């Protein structure tokens, strides 16, 4: 394999690793759950996408060509990451998890929660905020 191709692959792989690490640092460092949802679902998805891209290019350039399961992993991860993030945001709204004090428009939380399930009572006695 040519040196230039290897250098490009190395740079892509390093960028992917940096994004994966940034997603996990964000998961540790950010302050409430609504912020913490951002870091792994966006940065880590980009990082794993870059790593899988490098792996696919490497498999094409070396001996045994591109396998179907590699494309399947990439497509599956990129489809399912937003779905998981949406489900977790819904769960956080439903459970009325604690938010930061300086969050703007706090009344929108209750509105969004009621839109999820209009049959809920306004004040849930079990899950008081």
């Amino acid at each position, binding site marked *: 394999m040519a*040196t230039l191709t*290897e*250098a490009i*692959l*190395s740079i892509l*792989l*390093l960028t*992917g*690793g*940096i994004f*994966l*690490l940034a*997603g*996990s*640092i964000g*998961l*540790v460092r950010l302050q409430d*759950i609504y912020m*913490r*949802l951002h870091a*792994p679902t966006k940065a*880590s*998805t980009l*990082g*794993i996408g870059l*790593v*899988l891209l*490098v*792996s696919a290019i*490497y*498999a094409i350039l*070396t*001996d*045994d060509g591109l*396998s179907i*399961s*590699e494309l*399947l*992993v990439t497509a*599956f*991860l990129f489809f*399912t990451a937003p*779905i*998981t993030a949406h*489900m*977790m945001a*819904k*769960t*956080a709204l*439903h*459970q009325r*998890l*604690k938010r930061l004090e300086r969050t703007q428009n706090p009344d929108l939380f209750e509105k969004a929660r009621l839109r999820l399930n209009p049959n809920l009572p306004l004040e849930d006695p079990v899950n008081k905020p």
Partner: protein
Amino acid sequence: MLNIVVMIVSGMVSLALILNLYRLLVGPDVLDRVLALDTMYINAIALIVLLGIYFRSALYFEGALLIALLGFISSTALCKFLIRGDLIE
């Protein structure tokens, strides 16, 4: 050159896994732990793919596909359980 970079990136992903483990143990709510587990699944897929690059073997992608499926299903099932209190009604 690529082998050295693969080793470095494996170290970074392992550090990311340790950070996720911290959030899994500390996390104030259940949802934090679910989120940490989901991120751990993604990092494990990255680690397996890096191993596949290092050993030049296409065998590891089947495992990566399995882990991706299990991660999605388990995260969705846990969120559904936390919302509804039940999985199959």
